[in-house]
């Protein structure tokens, strides 16, 4: 996956767990939870979906790395390098 695809991968996961949120204008460097309604349980869901879709394990101590979209790309980049993008909510 490229960096752009990783952004898309994260947005797709958020769209799956929070179908009512508008994700078009998400800023890369602003905390996700300041832009959309996400609580800690939702965060757990993002981590869960990463594991399910891409086999990526995110240990609890690294959750903070996923606070922004840029953080996600930086942290997940190496882990997702060889993986193919999976879209469920945003396809079509």
């Amino acid at each position: 996956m490229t960096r752009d695809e990783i952004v898309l991968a994260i947005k797709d996961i958020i769209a799956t767990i929070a179908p009512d949120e508008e994700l078009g204008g998400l800023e890369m460097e602003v905390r996700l939870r300041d832009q959309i309604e996400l609580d800690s349980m939702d965060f757990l869901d993002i981590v869960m979906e990463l594991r399910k879709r891409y086999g990526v394990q995110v240990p609890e101590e690294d959750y903070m790395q996923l606070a922004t979209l840029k953080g996600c790309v930086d942290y997940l980049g190496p882990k997702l390098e060889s993986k193919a993008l999976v879209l469920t909510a945003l396809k079509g």
Partner: protein
Amino acid sequence: MRYDALILGAGMSGLAAGIRLAQAGKRVAVLERHYLWGGLNSFYKRAGRRFETGLHALTNFVPKGTPNVPLTRILRQLRISHDALRLAPQRHSKSALRLSSDETLVLEYSNDPARMRASVERLFPAETAGFERMVAALPGYSDATEADRTTSARARLAEFVREPRLVELLMIAPLFYGSPTERDMSWAEYGILFRSIHLEGMARPEGGIKALLDLLIERFEAEGGELRMRNGVAAILHTHGRVTGVRLDDGTELECERVLSSAGLVETEALCGTPRANEDDPRIGRLSFVEVCCVLDRTPLELGHDTTIVFYSDSERFLYERPETPVEPRAGVITCPSNYLTSAPDPEPFVRVTCPANHGFWTSLDETRYAAEKVRAVDAMLAAAESFSFPIRPHILFRDSFTPRTIERFTGHRGGAVYGSPLKRRDGQTDLAGLELIGTDQGLVGVVGALLSGISIANRSVLAPSGGLS
């Protein structure tokens, strides 16, 4: 073929936990003894008509998109859209306290909290400020202190409200809606119930409990979960303090890492091999009910009754307790599902009346006496309920009722205790590693509380670093 998790009971908490675990990619099965799902909130057919149990109202009702409230969180976690639930809000409801044959105090409320405030003001103008201070001081969903958990709700209410009849009136709906203890509850529980009923509000999924259950089952199966009906669990198997699996009623053994049990506290202990608790064990809840559901020849609205739910007390002291008599018609709930603001009414209007009942009495009768006593109890209940609502009996096309005996048989809850044990395990922990409690005995009440219970324990299971589930 080892399961990551086995869940006992296909009720609200079990299905919610199942959805969460299946979403996390776990191999999970929900085991249900009966041929119908839902547990305390279920449905059944009689004479070609569908009846429902449990759910009088879905509390915690908020409009779509309301942030930071239980309903929104739960729907998000289960990935069910607010629209899919098709929630029909209540018209309005009331708590009624009869002081004498010609004086009844009626507190009205709706999904707009201002209506309740206005009603308090009309009844007791001098108490309005105290009532508002009380509401402002209520503990929240997650910030209750240890003191809130051990203080009596009645005692705390009396600090804000000097009029004892208003205290009584303010206790009726929260007690009925979910107290496992008689007469009183903790201030922490009161905070949750008051918010759920009065500050958020009440609604009903169109199509009733069956529609909600269908949604849950559909989600569970879509995530790859396995629903095994007629799979009662006879024993939870364990060795060296750790769960290893379960044995089903038919002798089949299933292996698993983890068991989530909605069977109840003493019921789960018995499945683990602890000797069966005595009937008078203080951990067995004392609150059970007789309920009658009457199919009517016209809507309550046509009969002049526009209230969704009436919580009533036919005596100045609200008798929320196990009665000495078979049933206590002086305390009851009257629910009219057609008085939710629905665009898809049920095929026939019906009304449900529910009153506290004595479990021991109903389980001691032979079949003939049981049937006769049921008719007697229900007649007394309907007579009392009519004095708080509308003439029900002349308009009944068909009626069906159930008692604590029925509740115990279909839910497995000892004592037919609808709200479970007065002793709650909030963290769901048990003495066995890999065994956790969900549902009623985790201390959350109502449909939303039950869903939340399953979700929170499942989330912790998934998160637990040493949980063996990763």
